[in-house]
């Protein structure tokens, strides 16, 4: 569970971008990281309000359906699919690039040519799909291992660099809105995905205790790691300016490459897990093809949804590699799409808190107030990110994203016209069954209705 959330956040690449932010804007990076962390923690609080009250594989999709109704819920689902989907593509590409980079550093490969990258990415994609279908238990242990390893490697590298002094040029001090927006976007990008732990709540042992904890602590802990990375890099710059700056250890770049590769692979895998479970929930609600809601007879994983994602998750990166598009260029796009889609989903979930709590009669001033604050912060971030995107000439991407969400709504309208009850019954979650309730204490309707909805 924690593994899932942490790996979608992918701390070590985030730490690398934290150092890049320092290079771009100097000491101001630390407060920006703090701000992004605060914003994400606020969203975490909002998500925890739901996670404490229901266990749903569809995570935010189901939460928003319960709070704001089917249309908003479906919108959230589409945004999440887009967000996780672009993360999978981004991470798979990045991971493939790093593995090839590592092999090149290690001298196994003559150069960083296209063919090896293609093969490596295809292999990684196949491995990822296999692990996702095989089930959570394997992948959680594996991702946690990969993450821990890569965080240690990157931290070591940064500490060594800080100790020896880095040759990076001290950045210019002026700070304008554009730089701030870009930095905030990087900071948020580094943190999104922490909510993905919810997707596994149905499969966890004590979901109502564990999931809220994970959702709250992941952004906070990862934010702290990023701030630490930024500070280490600042120290390195300061010492470098003082005249140090010896050569780095030769082994470190290779190790860092490997660490980043494994972290990105873990991120791809965890995003895949999350997106598959959103699709699965939509299939279960029968607002998407019901086949998506089928689980594997032996591993009890939503394998149809997993295979359905393969063309997108593995096919797109391979196509891009075959077309020979430069990696940086494409990941800039994907980053914008992912961040914006995540922010939209977050905004909706924050807005959903108040109506949800009100509906179940558990609204308190503190909870709704915090959710409203989080919504405001996220809305502000969306404006900034869209502005940054427009400045980079990526307006068409924003339009495309909005268009995709519209298509999603049109699809939902079509479903509603054909089968209105499906839409109104949206928001499948893992309800208590007679088995969970004290004998004799269960109301009658549960005895008949509960069991069939149980998933495991």
């Amino acid at each position, binding site marked *: 569970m924690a593994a899932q959330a942490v790996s979608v956040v992918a701390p070590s690449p985030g730490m690398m971008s934290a150092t890049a932010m320092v290079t771009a804007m100097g000491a101001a990076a630390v407060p920006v990281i703090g701000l992004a962390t605060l914003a994400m923690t606020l969203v975490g609080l909002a998500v925890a309000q739901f996670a404490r*009250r229901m266990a749903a594989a569809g995570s935010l999709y189901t939460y928003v359906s319960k709070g704001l109704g089917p249309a908003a819920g479906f919108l959230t689902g589409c945004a999440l699919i887009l967000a996780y989907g672009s993360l999978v593509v981004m991470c798979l590409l990045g991971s493939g690039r790093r593995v090839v980079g590592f092999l090149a550093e290690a001298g196994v490969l003559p150069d960083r040519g296209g063919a090896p990258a293609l093969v490596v990415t295809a292999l990684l994609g196949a491995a990822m799909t296999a692990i996702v279908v095989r089930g959570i238990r394997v992948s959680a242990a594996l991702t946690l291992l990969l993450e821990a390893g890569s965080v240690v490697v990157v931290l070591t590298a940064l500490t060594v660099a800080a100790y020896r002094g880095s040759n990076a040029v001290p950045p210019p001090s002026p700070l304008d809105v554009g730089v701030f927006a870009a930095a905030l976007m990087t900071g948020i990008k580094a943190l999104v995905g922490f909510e993905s732990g919810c997707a596994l709540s149905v499969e966890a042992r*004590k979901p109502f205790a564990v999931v809220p904890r994970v959702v709250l602590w992941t952004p906070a802990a990862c934010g702290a790691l990023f701030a630490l990375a930024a500070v280490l890099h600042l120290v390195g710059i300061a010492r470098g300016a003082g005249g140090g700056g010896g050569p780095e250890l030769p082994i470190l770049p290779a190790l860092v490459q490997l660490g980043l590769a494994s972290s990105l692979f873990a991120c791809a895998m965890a995003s895949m897990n999350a997106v598959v479970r959103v699709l699965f929930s939509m299939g279960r609600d029968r607002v998407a093809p019901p086949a998506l809601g089928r689980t594997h007879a032996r591993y009890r994983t939503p394998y149809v949804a997993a295979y359905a994602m393969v063309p997108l998750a593995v096919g797109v990166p391979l196509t891009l590699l075959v077309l020979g598009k430069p990696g940086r260029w494409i990941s800039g796009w994907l980053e914008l799409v992912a961040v914006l889609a995540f922010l939209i989903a977050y905004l909706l979930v924050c807005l959903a808190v108040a109506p949800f709590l009100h509906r*179940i009669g*558990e609204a308190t001033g503190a909870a709704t107030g915090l959710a409203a604050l989080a919504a405001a912060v996220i809305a502000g971030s969306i404006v900034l990110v869209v502005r940054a995107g427009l400045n980079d000439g990526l307006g068409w991407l924003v339009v495309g994203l909005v268009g995709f969400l519209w298509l999603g709504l049109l699809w939902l309208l079509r479903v509603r016209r054909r089968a209105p009850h499906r839409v109104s019954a949206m928001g499948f979650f893992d309800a*208590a069954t007679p088995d969970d309730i004290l*004998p004799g*204490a269960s109301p009658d309707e549960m005895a008949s209705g509960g069991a069939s909805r149980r998933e495991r």
Partner: protein
Amino acid sequence: MATTDHPPAGRQPAAIRSALTVLEQVARAGPGVTARELSAALGMSPATTYRLVNLLVAEEYLVRLPDLRGFALGRKVVELAGAVAHSAVPAGAADAVAELRSRVRLAVHLASLRHGRLRMVDPDPDHPPSPDAVLARHLHASALGKLLLAEQHDWQALAPGAADLRQLTPQTVGRPDALEKELDQVRGDQVARQFGEVRPDRGCVAMPVRDPDGTLVAGLAISGRPDRIAALAPDVLRLVERCAHDLARLLRTLV
């Protein structure tokens, strides 16, 4: 995983007391009670109540019902209550047992054997069986307990305390290998017997009631003086067997 369970601190008596009060109120009000109603009934502030119910749900003492508003007591309470909790026997099953009682003129008891626990659900009102606590603690002695033990791969895992096989009477089976042999026989015959092992003046024959998929759900026992039980007529046994067979269908909702 993030399940770093803190050791119990024991320094928040007020919070624990409030949590227990909430639990009691849910038990009193019945399933479906909402957090707001709890807060009103207990005079606790809503925020505190919501925090407490969510904590109790997280620890699985309470269960949130599918409408997300109402609460009911959860599994953990069952585990606490153990053998004490009685559940209503479905009406059809109670009728079947009553009919058997009228025909065999022996004590007839129905016990739930789900979840590896022995729990009397329909004890004979005229000839009450030994107390639940005795039966549940000394599974090796009673016929119903033997049914339950025979179902396990390793009977010692289910009854760790019973490893010493306490002698309730001189007849109680005392050696693990003797018990193992007896359990093997139970597995083969699908009938468990005891003669004066719980009380010197009682003997008992118990038959399993199984789900369609073969899971042990309950045990149906007839009990009386050991010499009468030893010399039961075959048609009495057939009646018990048929009743157990009927119960399999009727007890599907018994938890």
